[in-house]
């Protein structure tokens, strides 16, 4: 029994044709609008390494690699997604009144096709039921305030699936019952429907068919308007994901070799510094808006959001999309609305980011939240000069004395007193001490411990002494890209003149910036975090260290673990039994100090470091090991505030304490 007959004396396909033209037309018009909006963005050359991109597309899009990291919602989504890929051709078949299947019959593939479609509908159905269960019964915290839209759409999809089965079943019953074993679920439906009178059956099937088609058309119209735009947006997003190492930022201006233009040659007459307008973003930044599925995984892991600040990374992405949709017609005429992107994001939110990249790491569709915030910071600092007052001190101090505290540059090597360390001489390794390790009392002891261990193991190293300056990371993450570039150029000159290309540092921010960012400024170095070198020395028995006796937990620094990709070396170097916090390794939670946040004021009731200090404290460890000077400060302060007196120690300090005394 089929729905393909005349209705009110008119052939069925005329109705379908009108509806299809309407729905598809609206769909195409809206998608076109979005594409034109995204094309307003600036260039971002990502049309390279196609082989890698294609592979990533297969694993991340087709394979749902990051989606299924969430075991419940992720697999539910994957079932719906894979199911729809399998059943999608059925829409053509139903739209052509079965012509598609007739074609397949000729080449004898109709059976297997029917099976695939049937399983597809079943998978999608199971996925939808799981998703509905999650939304309506489990109701996780993050879904409590979302609109009912999500559930309605799921019900609509369920409608599409059930009606499809009814239509399938209708094919099998009627004048002559012929159960098609290639459609097992359809057969189940057919058996249930057996016994219904022919006229009723015909009505049910007709109704199902038209509900099915109306829902699909409605879905097409709805897709570009809601979060379901991700059905389209994720394709370019996944395909053109960032191939630079995580956390790397773009220079203000690059030459034809993609190297940073020297600060003296920057074309300030034509440069836009940072982002204030929609069109200041690159096309890839803009496409993020329409790729967002509002899954809120970024929100869940964001330290700023978790500590009650204005920033919610998901809101930033939705802001971008809503801004584009609301002002789209005006933007497409080349004009800009009065309200700027910075205003829409809200400066308070922009300054709350610790640039820990947890959001970027969590996003299943490769949305890049952090660059949106650091780009708007660039605008606020370099163009608008509207930024937290504390940062003015930071910038002045970096400019004058090349360290964030503004302490005399000539005292940078004072921590070495009595250690007999080579200063400014070539050696196998350069120990890049960093500002905290040079000037901050607590962290000086980390520099000393590291130096003593390196000497103990017979490593040939020197430091830059007064020639060393801050690597520029605080200035850069705070939006002062020009100051960063000046410091980067100076450091590259100094390190290159020394000629040492292997660098050891105890600061993950130096580790990241010198190792991954300086290349664009003419400095290509092999950079090691001290834990990597100490681990190597321990393995090679050049350092004889006993496993520590106390219970220790290790707090992964963002720029070493998640961003730097190194989570093993610090643990191996420490040895012994580490009690892990629930969030560790690449999923570690920021101490609150990154993104120059350590230099900014933080409301007493919204402190990130307290959250993390509690997590560390709850492990029952007797000592908290860190591998970053800012984590050292933030974790020590955090523990103090929550009234916990556990010591915070750097990896090198713990190793030095357990160094076997030579006999």
């Amino acid at each position: 029994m089929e729905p393909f007959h005349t209705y009110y004396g008119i052939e069925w396909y005329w109705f379908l044709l009108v509806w299809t033209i309407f729905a598809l037309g609206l769909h195409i018009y809206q998608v076109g609008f979005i594409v034109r909006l995204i094309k307003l963005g600036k260039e971002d050359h990502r049309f390279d390494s196609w082989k890698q991109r294609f592979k990533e597309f297969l694993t991340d899009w087709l394979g749902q690699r990051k989606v299924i990291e969430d075991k419940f919602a992720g697999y539910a989504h994957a079932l719906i997604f894979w199911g729809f890929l399998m059943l999608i051709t059925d829409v053509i078949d139903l739209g052509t009144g079965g012509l598609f299947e007739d074609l397949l019959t000729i080449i004898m593939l109709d059976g297997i096709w029917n099976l695939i479609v049937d399983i597809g509908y079943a998978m999608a159905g199971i996925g939808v039921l799981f998703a509905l269960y999650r939304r309506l019964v489990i109701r996780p915290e993050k879904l409590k305030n979302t609109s009912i839209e999500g559930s309605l759409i799921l019900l609509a999809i369920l409608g599409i699936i059930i009606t499809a089965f009814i239509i399938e079943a209708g094919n099998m019953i009627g004048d002559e019952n012929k159960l098609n074993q290639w459609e097992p679920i359809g057969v189940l439906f057919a058996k249930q429907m057996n016994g219904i009178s022919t006229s009723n059956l015909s009505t049910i099937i007709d109704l199902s068919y038209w509900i099915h088609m109306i829902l699909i058309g409605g879905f097409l119209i709805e897709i570009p308007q809601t979060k379901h735009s991700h059905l389209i947006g994720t394709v370019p997003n996944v395909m053109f994901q960032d191939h630079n190492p995580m956390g790397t930022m773009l220079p203000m201006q690059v030459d034809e070799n993609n190297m940073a233009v020297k600060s003296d040659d920057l074309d300030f007459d034509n440069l836009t510094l940072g982002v204030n307008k929609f069109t200041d973003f690159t096309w890839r930044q803009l496409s993020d808006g329409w790729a967002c599925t509002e899954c809120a995984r970024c929100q869940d892991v964001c330290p700023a959001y978790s500590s009650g600040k204005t920033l919610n990374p998901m809101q930033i992405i939705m802001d971008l999309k809503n801004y584009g949709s609301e002002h789209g017609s005006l933007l497409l005429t080349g004009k800009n609305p009065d309200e700027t992107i910075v205003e829409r994001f809200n400066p308070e939110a922009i300054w709350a980011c610790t640039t820990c990249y947890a959001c970027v790491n969590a996003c299943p569709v490769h949305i890049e939240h952090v660059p949106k915030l650091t780009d708007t910071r660039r605008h606020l600092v370099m163009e608008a000069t509207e930024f937290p007052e504390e940062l003015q001190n930071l910038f002045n101090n970096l400019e004058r004395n090349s360290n964030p505290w503004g302490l005399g540059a000539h005292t940078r090597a004072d921590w070495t007193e009595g250690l007999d360390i080579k200063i400014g001489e070539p050696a196998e390794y350069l120990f890049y001490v960093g500002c905290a390790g040079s000037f901050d009392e607590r962290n000086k002891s980390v520099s000393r411990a590291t130096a003593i261990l390196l000497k103990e193991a017979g490593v040939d190293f020197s430091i830059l002494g007064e020639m060393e300056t801050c690597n520029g990371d605080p200035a850069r993450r705070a939006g002062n890209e020009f100051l960063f570039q000046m410091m980067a150029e100076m450091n590259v000159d100094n390190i290159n003149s020394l000629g040492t290309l292997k660098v050891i540092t105890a600061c993950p921010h130096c580790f990241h910036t010198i190792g991954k960012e300086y290349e664009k400024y003419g400095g290509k170095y092999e950079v090691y975090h001290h834990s990597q070198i100490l681990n190597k020395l321990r393995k090679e028995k050049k350092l004889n260290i006993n496993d520590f006796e106390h219970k220790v937990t290790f707090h992964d620094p963002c720029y070493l673990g998640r961003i730097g990709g190194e989570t093993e070396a610090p643990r191996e170097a420490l040895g012994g039994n580490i009690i892990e916090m629930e969030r560790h390794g690449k999923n570690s939670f920021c101490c609150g100090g990154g993104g120059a946040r350590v230099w900014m004021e933080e409301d007493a009731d919204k402190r990130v470091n307290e959250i993390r200090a509690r997590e560390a404290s709850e492990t029952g460890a007797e000592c908290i090991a860190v591998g970053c000077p800012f984590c050292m400060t933030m974790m020590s302060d955090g523990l103090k505030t929550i009234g916990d007196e556990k010591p915070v120690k750097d990896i090198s300090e713990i190793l030095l304490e357990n160094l076997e005394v030579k006999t």
Partner: protein
Amino acid sequence: MNIAVLIKMVPDTESKLEIVNGKLEESNFKYMVNPYDEFAVEQAVQFKEAVGGKVTLVSLFTDNNTIDTDLRKMIAIGADEVIVLRSKDYRGDKPSTNAEILAKKVKELNADLVLCGVQGIDYYQAATGPMLAQKLDIPNISGVTKLELNDNLITAHRQMEGGIQVIESQMPILISCQKDMTKVRFPALKDIMMSKRKPFENQTVDYEEEADIKQIECTLPPARGGGMIIEGETPEEKVDKLINILKMEAKVL
């Protein structure tokens, strides 16, 4: 309105202080704009923005240091021109001589208003400003915390012990600016870049010493002794120990 702002370049507060042969070792000093003078520049620019005119920065300095970057920043804030008078014999602690040399230049500028910082943070003499007013034969208000301009009338507020003094005067006048007179803006990067296109002139001058003061000796303050943390189980025990130390060791009780 024609405004002249005097800028003193002073050693960075974090400079290394060393005394060699009874003299301060200055060769490694880095120099910066005297912080009080920054208030003067900001105030001058605010007046210029309100009523129009020109802001000229005048500085007197040695001939062997590069100070362009710091002075360019002052242009970026909104000043129009920089004139640096250079002499190899310049010293920061000769207010009378410095005022005389500066007076010659400022006279040429026909300034309606001369602004400077209340004192240089190198020698803290607070003398050059008033001396310059004397040599220019114009009135002077020192240590101003708030300044207002109404046509040709200047209203200045001065913070005094327990109150505020309000002074009115006609221009031309020399005003020396106290801390926090106004908030110095942070120049936008584009303004810093554009500052390179504004006039920046170095002029060599003779340094003829006036009847001036002479430094005989300089010493560094005695090094601070280390602190002491008193250990103890209870606050009472710690207090007892403290009293004992104050009595027996410090002998202040």
